């Protein structure tokens, strides 16, 4: 089954009551029309490698189309990708400046060319044009890319000819799509729908820190997106700490925890929440984090990254650092060589489709270890996460390290990098330091 996309980026349709052919924008056809479907295998209509091997795109193309276009002669256009439909004396044409379709011209040019697309191709095109994307080669941001004239898809500074993309590559859909500029230059667009998430358990200080962090995220970080909070608290206990009137939704997920082990492990369970799959990227931060610069560059970089990311641990390299898995690696006879450990106080997840597996493995090893060896091992959670990462999915410590700074009370906000993380003091003191730091930044900003 194939549908026909016109030169204008519209879809060839048929009026339901009259059978008259029209062309309409594919996602707003109107109730009076239905897309015209050619009841032929899409493989016979779209040119592929097998055609290239044969050196011909016409060998298996039936001349007589079935259904509403029967009576016309179907031929491959000179671009070897689109189809023309010839009547007795003229070609089927999708006219510009309106939605009319008819046999108007004796010569076939752009308006007389129709690109065969499958239902799956249409769904991907719909997904592309209905969402925000980043062009990987340039970082260009495209909110709802457009179907344009001449079979073009336009996303920020990237323009590709759809005739040379069909069938669309769905290998990494819906996170990423590989497109071919000029028919061969590899470009990728990455979905951008960020989620920043926190875990908040127990005491009041954590909620006060959450309030400061979220305030900085929207006010200083200029964040436009959703925020999730995983917590053992009732929504009524958290909502008062969240700002209103911000450009994003708050999602409160119930998440029990009985001790520090659970609280630290919770960040890795985000994949248990089925809606996590719709976001790219997902970014976990400890509540003791103040956003001190625009967070957009960091989130863009994460969305386009191939790896999970976390800032490098400031303690010694992995080979010598007990908190960062040296013990487990030694027990498993794995030399970490010169690899740096990470500190999971910030955790960047490009998407769950590709990276949910390593996170699930961390969860599995955490759960097993807690039962087998107890819950009170020093640094258990971070050590296990570093162990799994080292063995199976090395984290990128470079990307986030350039954005994350560990700060002390009284730190100078002039040296801001994006995220300031407050560690190593009592909770109330930390909250006060965060409040003071945020006040200074808001003064500067």
């Amino acid at each position, binding site marked *: 089954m194939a549908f026909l996309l016109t030169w204008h980026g519209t879809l060839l349709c048929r009026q339901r009551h009259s059978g008259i052919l029209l062309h309409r924008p594919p996602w707003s056809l109107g109730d009076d029309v239905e897309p015209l479907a050619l009841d032929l295998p899409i493989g016979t209509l779209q040119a592929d490698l097998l055609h*290239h*091997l044969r050196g011909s795109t016409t060998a298996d193309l039936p001349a007589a189309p079935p259904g509403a276009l029967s009576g016309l002669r179907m031929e491959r256009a000179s671009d070897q990708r689109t189809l023309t439909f010839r009547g007795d004396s003229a070609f089927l044409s999708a006219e510009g400046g309106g939605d009319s379709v008819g046999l108007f011209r004796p010569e076939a040019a752009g308006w007389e060319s129709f690109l065969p697309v499958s239902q799956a191709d249409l769904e991907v095109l719909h997904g592309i044009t209905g969402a925000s994307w980043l062009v990987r080669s340039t970082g260009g941001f495209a909110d709802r890319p457009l179907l344009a004239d001449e079979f073009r898809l336009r996303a920020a500074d990237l323009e590709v000819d759809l005739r040379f993309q069909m069938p669309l590559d769905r290998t990494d859909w819906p996170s990423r799509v590989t497109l*071919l500029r000029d028919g*061969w230059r*590899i470009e990728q667009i990455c979905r951008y729908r960020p989620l920043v998430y926190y875990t908040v358990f127990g005491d009041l200080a954590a909620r006060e820190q959450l309030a400061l962090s979220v305030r900085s995220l929207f006010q200083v970080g200029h964040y436009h997106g959703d925020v999730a909070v995983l917590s053992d608290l009732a929504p009524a206990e958290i909502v008062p700490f969240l700002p209103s009137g911000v450009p994003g939704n708050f999602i409160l997920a119930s998440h*029990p925890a*009985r001790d520090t082990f659970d609280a630290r492990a919770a960040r890795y369970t985000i994949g248990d929440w089925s809606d996590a799959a719709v976001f790219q990227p997902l970014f976990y931060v400890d509540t003791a984090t103040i956003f001190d610069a625009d967070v957009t560059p960091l989130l863009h970089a994460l969305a386009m990254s191939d790896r999970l990311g976390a800032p490098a641990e400031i303690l010694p390299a992995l080979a010598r650092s007990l908190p960062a898995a040296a013990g487990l690696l030694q027990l498993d006879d794995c030399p970490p060589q010169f690899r740096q450990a990470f500190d999971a106080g910030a955790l960047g997840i490009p998407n769950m489709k590709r990276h949910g597996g390593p996170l699930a493995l961390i969860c599995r090893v955490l759960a097993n270890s807690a*039962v087998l060896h107890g819950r009170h091992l020093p640094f258990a959670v971070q050590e296990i996460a570093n162990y799994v990462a080292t063995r199976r999915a090395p984290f990128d410590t470079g990307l986030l390290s350039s954005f994350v700074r560990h700060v002390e009370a009284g730190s100078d906000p002039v040296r801001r990098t994006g995220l300031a993380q407050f560690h190593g003091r009592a909770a109330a003191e930390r909250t006060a330091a965060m409040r003071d730091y945020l006040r200074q930044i808001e003064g500067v900003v």
Partner: protein
Amino acid sequence: MSGLSETWLLSAHGTVIGWDAAAGAPRQHALTAPGTHLVPIGGPVSIQESGLGHLLRRDVDDLDLTVPFGPWPGARVTRAGDGRSLHLAFGERYLTADPSTDRVGFDAMTAAANERFLPLSGADLDALRGLLTREWLVGDAGDLVDPGQSAMQPDFTLRLGPLAVDLRWQLPLDLSQWPNRIMLLRDGWRIEPVRRYRPLIYYAAFGGAEIMRQFALSVRSLCTAGGYDGSIAVLTDKTPEEIDSLLPAGLAGRVAVIRLDARDRIGFMCARYAITGWPDAWHHQPLLYLDTDILFDMDAAPLLRAAAMSEHIAAPAERGEALRSSTFIGANLLAADGCTPGFGDGFNSGTLAIPSLAEHGGTLALIGRILTNFGTLHGRNALAWADQEVANYVSYRIARFDTTWISRYVRLANVHATPAGRRGLVHFCWVSGEQRAAVMQNYLARLDAMR
């Protein structure tokens, strides 16, 4: 999360509960016993997962429910002391599976080893059977384990050759990469990758008698010096009868013939990427593509195991052919796309080790797409080394082919190559086309003389 209605029971000694129609009673069966009718134990409540979510919810130990239907309606289900397995009981009588007979029943007055059961989902059951009945490469060392070395053992132990894992710490199995790969946890935490081993070696052989003669010599070397007895396929314009007529008597029927039309040299070179269109290829791991002018001169198994263990498609480095300057390996495409590849060499696409199509089929399809588009837009002969140029370009831009380990196995050779320097594969790409079959024949004769 699976409900009890989809849950089967695995005993501590590795049997599952089945239904004996003649006796009208449940019996225990070996996991891999053919033709058994297994009985789900019935009930609407999830009991299988013991993951981190359950740990945080504190419900690992708190299980206490009653089975509403199935073979034992009314039976009480509680968690065993290990936090993973289950007890089923009517009052004080526990379900027990006697390892010395096939009988199961509520005969035990106390809950001990034989009264523990693990809940299994249908997917886990199928995967366990797959682990026990297929060939796998186990652990980072990639030890080859065949079904004869695999078994269920006491205390929920799954043994795969040298690896023994306790299934209580694996369920539900991580099936995100099944059936190609699965991660198991030795001692509950040590990560042990297990990879499927079902190799396919394939060729693209089209056109004249010279190419077909090379193909026949290569297959012969594969099955003699290469010691290979696995699957072989050829993408070709010839019939199965024509292919069989080329092969030594013992090899007739060994090669799966996939018919394709290819018009010319460009079509012949690009055909290797059409393997993604053959559905059977998706069931193999790894796949090894070979040009017809390649001979095996040593055992193929080490190379194939390395290919199955690899994270990337692998191809041998083309020494001295720099990506920044050699048109032979795509320098023109890289330059035209603004890439600055530095000092690296490209690779020869005459040998392609593909771990699996599930992971890498998209890359092969992308190469095919670019070849097709480039041919349409710039002319069929615009790229003199068509597929090799595009494969190097795609590798450099996004796919990162591995040229390290495989280069140790492949020798790019001229007329002077002798078996004395053999590594596994010898590729006579530096021999003129009309001489190649004769040189290969001669090489094989010398190799035979050494054996």
